[in-house]
């Protein structure tokens, strides 16, 4: 299984039944663009790993940003 196949699989995870409070889109945007501390970014990534909606929000923030990681 190639890296690209695993990436495609991760992108195609089915959304589970809505439960709990979603991660704020603004928090995800800031994490993607390097505007959070590494510790706070790690906490956001922990959610992204387990929550397909947060993962989609992360990918959209990547696509809509300017491609630069700021702040480091």
């Amino acid at each position, binding site marked *: 299984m190639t890296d690209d196949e695993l*990436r495609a*699989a991760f992108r*195609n995870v*089915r959304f589970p039944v809505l439960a709990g409070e979603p991660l704020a889109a603004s928090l*995800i945007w800031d994490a993607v663009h390097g505007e959070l501390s590494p510790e706070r970014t790690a906490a956001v990534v922990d959610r992204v*790993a387990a929550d397909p909606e947060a993962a989609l929000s992360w990918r959209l923030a*990547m696509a809509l940003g300017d491609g630069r990681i700021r702040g480091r």
Partner: protein
Amino acid sequence: MQTSADHHDYAELRGRLLVAVRRLAPSSMADQVEDLVQTGILRILATYASDDVPNALLYRIAHSVVVDEIRRSRRRNEIGLTPSMPERLEARQPTPEGTARGTQLGDVVVDCLGELSPDRRRVVTLYLQGHGVPDIAGLLGLERKQTENLVYRGMKDLRGALSERGFAP
């Protein structure tokens, strides 16, 4: 008088949103992409068209609005058919023939990520999201070499966990 609506190219914003959502969203959302983006653009226009919003901020707003529209749509059960947990677990069982490349592979990848050590899980998650090693190192405050090792070992762990579930390479 010229408003910021004149300054911003909303057609370009709409086009960029459409391309991004089409490319990045799960296939289960394919039928809803146009409506989601159109509704999002209308909300942005209704709220910000008369304000002087810098372009960089406009894309941040657009991201927030589109994500919100996706959540609203999910609540209306219009997208992302939401199977119950028993249905999802049943769907995750590999077939006897070991056909592992179906649409449920992603669900299993998420399960397997949960078994990785936290540091490996984070770098692998960002790697699967499409980030390269320099970006991952910057985002998580790691050294580049350390990040390379974590990606390598984490992907190896992930493939091992997939293999244990019958999703062999």
